[in-house]
């Protein structure tokens, strides 16, 4: 047993870190550090910079045009990127559409879409959820009817992260009402600039614009943009669920947050002493750090298993639960650290619409909004309750 990475692996990470250090645009770095909402241009710019080093499609094999990294290298690259202060990527293209097209796409679809994904020239989003179908995809209503060589799509999608930054949407639609409801689901690639697509922002508790709702009215989608056959949408969705869920990357995000939290606790004062040394706060800080250490070790074990081509199985759900819990806790402690300065709400500054100075210490001003936002961590992508249902059934046979 050995927990260390090899010298080569660490040298590789250093190279990525140096690249980020040298090439992350200062304005984007500042926004990330300060928690200011990023624009479509910010995301696109940074992703294109990463693409110059083939680091946007970090998980792709060489034969598919990716960098062909080992599992350890992928993890280390992502860690270097996060710890280097970079924004999270809008990675539905590289993580979802790419793998799906590689597995199910026609040669034409591959030729049309993959190069632009690798180069970050087109940004994708994912249209799964609907108002009446959250975790329960079998209830999808959004319909697509064949009309010549087009589908005509009508319906509503919701919780679409970053649709307002994206060019195209990977969408599940209903093409027939089978008795077994999942059999009638089909996968379409929809151009968000097509007539009939209306994107409405959903503002969340943090005051930011991450999510959207799409109203699709008689949107015409070429049959050529159907992935797989009609009725294969369920199969493709399951393929994606089974596909690498890189929750290990949340370990890196957690590490970045922990560092931020420690900086805050070192700067804040309680009766003149460091908040980091106040017994109750210190205990909570230590508890979080230890939780994170356990999660990181679990992640390492999973990476090692994956690298040895062993099935990772249900551990992915366990890791998701624990890294998300740690994220939520970290944001909660950052908010608590602010005491009264957790209260001001500076939405214009958060949204990048004002240059006014912050109320109170500038590192505190968005901690409470971030805390609110973090509550989604145990809801999105399969709530904790659903993860535990899955674990009970699959891992424990209950």
């Amino acid at each position, binding site marked *: 047993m050995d927990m260390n990475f090899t010298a080569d692996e660490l040298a590789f990470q250093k190279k990525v870190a140096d690249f980020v250090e040298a090439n992350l645009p200062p304005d984007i770095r500042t926004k990330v550090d300060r928690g200011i909402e990023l624009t479509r241009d910010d995301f696109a710019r940074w992703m294109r910079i990463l693409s110059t080093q083939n680091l946007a499609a970090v998980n792709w094999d060489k034969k598919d045009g990716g960098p062909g990294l080992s599992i350890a290298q992928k993890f280390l690259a992502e860690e270097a990127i996060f710890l280097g202060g970079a924004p999270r990527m809008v990675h539905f293209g590289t993580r979802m559409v790419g793998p799906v097209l590689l597995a199910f796409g026609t040669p034409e679809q591959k030729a049309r879409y993959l190069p632009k994904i690798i180069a970050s020239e087109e940004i994708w989003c994912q249209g799964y959820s609907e108002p009446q179908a959250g975790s329960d995809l079998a209830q999808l209503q959004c319909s697509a009817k064949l009309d010549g060589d087009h589908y005509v799509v009508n319906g509503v999608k919701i919780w679409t992260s970053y649709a307002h930054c994206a060019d195209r949407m990977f969408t599940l639609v209903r093409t027939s009402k089978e008795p077994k409801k999942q059999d009638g689901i089909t996968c379409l690639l929809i151009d968000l600039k097509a007539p009939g697509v209306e994107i409405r922002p959903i503002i969340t508790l943090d005051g930011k614009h991450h999510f959207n709702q799409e109203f699709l009215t008689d949107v015409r989608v070429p049959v050529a943009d159907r992935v797989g056959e009609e009725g294969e949408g369920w199969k493709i969705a399951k393929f994606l669920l089974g596909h690498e869920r890189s929750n290990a990357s949340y370990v890196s995000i957690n590490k970045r947050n922990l560092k931020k939290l420690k900086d805050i606790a070192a700067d804040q004062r309680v009766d003149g002493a460091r908040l980091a040394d106040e017994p109750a706060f210190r205990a909570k800080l230590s508890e979080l750090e230890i939780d994170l250490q356990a999660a990181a070790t679990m992640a390492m074990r999973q990476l090692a298993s994956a690298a040895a081509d062993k099935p990772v199985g249900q551990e992915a759900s366990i890791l998701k639960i624990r890294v998300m819990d740690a994220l939520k806790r970290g944001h909660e402690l950052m908010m608590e650290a602010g005491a*009264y*300065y957790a209260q001001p709400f500076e939405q214009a500054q958060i949204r990048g619409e004002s240059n006014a100075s912050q109320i109170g210490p500038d590192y505190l001003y968005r901690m409470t909004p971030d805390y*609110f936002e973090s509550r989604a961590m145990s809801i999105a992508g399969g709530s904790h309750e659903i993860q535990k249902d899955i674990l009970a059934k699959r891992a424990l046979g209950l």
Partner: protein
Amino acid sequence: MNFELSEDQVMLQESVNRFVQNNYSFEQRRKIVGADQGYSDAHWAQFAELGWLGMAFPEAAGGYGGTPVETMIVMEEFGKGLVAEPFVSTVVLAGGALVHGGSDAQQQALVPQIAEGKLKMALAFAERQSRYNLADVATTAKKSGGDYVLSGAKSVVFGAPSADTFIVSARTAGGQRDTAGVTLFLVDANAPGVAVRGYPTVDGMRAGEVTLTDVKVAGDAVVGAVDGGFDVLDATIDGAIAATAAEAVGAMSTLNDMTLEYIKTREQFGQPIGKFQVLQHRMVDMFIAHEEAKSMAMMAAMRIDDADASERRKAASATKVQIAKSARFVGQQAIQLHGGIGMTDEYAAGHYFKRLTMIDRSFGDGDFHLARFGALS
């Protein structure tokens, strides 16, 4: 032993409840807190008319002689609708300081104005370095003849943008964290040297940063004894803890009802999600959390006037610890049970969660009061 409200108290409760029902639907509230001022002048006038603004003050001062139980009743109903008017800042905080420290002359001059809705006040006690320690006061008040000259900055002063008059804690003697040597002053919001930077808080309320630059006040602006402001502040903040505990109880009550309704109607996997046992038990735990909080808020209302300061402090801190625990659990789980919709600004649940979270951040959080309680035990 009697936990019943008197007939008058029941009437008060019904009256506040009716006000909230009629004026604080979620959409109505959005409009109020979304506007610049953040509250409604018409409501404030109505509060005055209904006697709520003078309720908690002694009759001798021009108030209506209510007890903390009346304040509890009003605040619990306010909490159900997330009422945004500056009641806590004017009546509970500044008003509390007047009750605990104000001279007869001060009370008689100010209380009738408050009761009539003509005067809004705010209590400026926190500072950038102070966290929750009321004695940590760096703002100075220097004697200058019969006057005092105040300089310093006060943080996150609730209700500051609408306040006509502040009560400000400043240091007249002692070291920065000594309890002795803190003095309270009445300061006119328009006095030269007073600057207010107002802003909304995350829960839709209003607060402000108050800067004092060589602000001159007369000797009769001192509230309570010179150097003896800490005890007044301490009792006032304990009163605010009891009041906002009741507010939190009201907010939890609405949030629980809303969540229960949601899980009874929202369907997933072919049935209402409230059929899932895990969510049922979670909901039960949320109701238990509310029941415990309610019990402690009632206890606080009965004990917060205790002449024994140590008993009062213990009651306040115990209540705050319970409120912190209950509010955090109810708020977080309400969002979890609502799923995505609970995360949106368009839906009420999140706003109750926000207010509950900010009550926890006010007047000392759970850890602060756990330590305070421990030190008193």
